[in-house]
């Protein structure tokens, strides 16, 4: 296992794209600040109060950009091994398939956490050095919220590893990762939209023309409602956008650990049985 992890680090450190992604995770918050600073001066020159009109940036929104970068990282890292024959060289010389899969998973998870740490560190530094300007244009989220970033990076690393190792078509693997990510980021809002449908709706009677209240057929009740609430609470979109209470941390710890173990287990079993070309 240690040999396999060492092997991954040797080749990762020689891959310029992966290093570029690491640098990007550091400079994204800086670029965002420069963008806001430009906007701020634009409003100032136009004679408006920039603090009133400029957009306000939330690191939780920007985390979504980072998750896309994680998907690209997993694709670059695993597809290099898979399509350039790394897996073949390892298997034919007697490296266990489970060792190969676990090392891919651990290295992807390690880099996902590293990218997240770089992003958070860069964000906090940017926030700190931008002084009054920063406090007015950036949301200062509680430190607990950053823990969710790390949790979700961990779970996403396992999902991306599974998708990239399992599917034989390169394009399909990256597209599925991105589609999955978009779904993960948006499903919470979608479910919430469905749950927010009011119980009663006002309708106009065709016969009398009078308005009256009736039960909304689109209202979701009973067990389906409970299931949807359960799912929504566990999506990254919902977890990151709401208030980070201790309960949110607990629920998301359970969810991300489950996702990591489940997708890791599925990947491990399927890779042991997979026919490689």
């Amino acid at each position: 296992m240690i040999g396999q992890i060492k092997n991954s680090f040797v080749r990762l450190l020689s891959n310029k794209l992966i290093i570029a992604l690491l640098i990007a995770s550091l400079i994204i918050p800086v670029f965002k600040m420069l963008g806001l600073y430009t906007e701020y001066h634009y409003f100032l020159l136009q004679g408006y109060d920039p603090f009133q009109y400029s957009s306000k940036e939330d690191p939780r929104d920007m985390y979504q950009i980072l998750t896309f970068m994680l998907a690209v990282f997993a694709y670059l890292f695993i597809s290099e091994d898979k399509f350039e024959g790394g897996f073949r060289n390892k298997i034919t010389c007697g490296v266990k398939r489970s060792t190969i899969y676990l090392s891919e998973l651990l290295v992807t998870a390690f880099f996902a956490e590293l990218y997240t740490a770089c992003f958070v560190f860069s964000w906090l530094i940017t926030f700190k050095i931008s002084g009054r300007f920063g406090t007015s244009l950036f949301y200062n989220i509680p430190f607990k919220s950053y823990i969710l970033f790390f949790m979700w990076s961990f779970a996403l690393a396992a999902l991306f590893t599974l998708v990239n190792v399992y599917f034989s078509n390169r394009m399909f693997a990256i597209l599925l990762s991105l589609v999955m990510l978009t779904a993960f980021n948006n499903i919470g809002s979608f479910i919430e939209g469905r749950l927010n449908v009011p119980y009663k709706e006002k309708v106009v009677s065709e016969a009398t023309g009078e308005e009256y209240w009736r039960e909304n057929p689109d209202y979701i009740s009973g067990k389906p409602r409970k299931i949807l609430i359960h799912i929504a609470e566990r999506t990254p979109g919902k977890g990151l956008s709401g208030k980070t209470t201790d309960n949110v941390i607990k629920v998301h710890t359970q969810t991300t650990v489950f996702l990591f173990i489940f997708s890791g287990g599925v990947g491990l079993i399927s890779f042991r049985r997979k026919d490689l070309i």
Partner: protein
Amino acid sequence: MEYVLTTDALGKDYGKNHILKEVTLQIPTGSIFGLVGKNGAGKTTFIRVISGLQAPSSGSYTLSGVKNTDPKIIKVRRRMGALVERPAFYKNLSAYDNLKLQYINLGLPSFDSIDELLKLVGLQDTGKKHAGKFSLGMKQRLGIAIAMCGDPDILILDEPINGLDPQGIIEMRELLLKINQEKKTTLLISSHILDELGKLATHYAFIDNGRILQTLSAEELARKTRKSARIVVSDTQGMCRVLDDLGFKFEVASDGSIDVYEDINVSKLVLAADKEGIEISKILENDETLEAYFMNLLGGEASR
């Protein structure tokens, strides 16, 4: 005879397609074993199965005395090198670094022998040049060097001369002979370029449609493809005396026909036969190449 690899009714199915059908082979230690077959015959699938990339659907194989179902097979694989279809390496790394990674895969404690391996395959002067920028021949040699890491007992090469230019083919042939003779490594080479394989192999297996048609040694094949002339005569015994007198090597093929394994001077032969009152009605030249032999074998199989 000792065998490094044996297979017993090995089969591989992709869904309902039977790609390998009861393949039974024995690969002698120290040999250069040529697996001959046209594209799609099942050569690559056979190699994928024995190199552990795919599991057999039926049957079994034994590598250095260890059956594929035995957990010890993982350890035995460390004594095997394989180049399946195309050379496997990381494009953005140098030849040295690629070998270093394979040494790590094998758990070898020292990288000291990498330079020697690079020299063996003629890549000692590539320095830090990325493998992705190598020529096709260099890539192929790097693939072989990676497969050679850890001095394997058996080297499995799938179409190693595919796409190489004539110079590259000669270099590859010399390299493979060197590996076999100097390192005493058994080679299993699959190819559809038969003439080239004919210059290397000590044993052959002919495969078509997932089935082994025939296995034989190079000597047996040479006997079967020996240059000869078949003469059809009126008196077989009399003609044998004439051929003896002329000092020719020959075999009686059937009553009325004799195979002569020499270059014959037709007028001299006809005159000598005429003196004995023997009539030669036909002389048929048989100069069968490995390719022709294989095609005949396929033809025979198809007509069955």
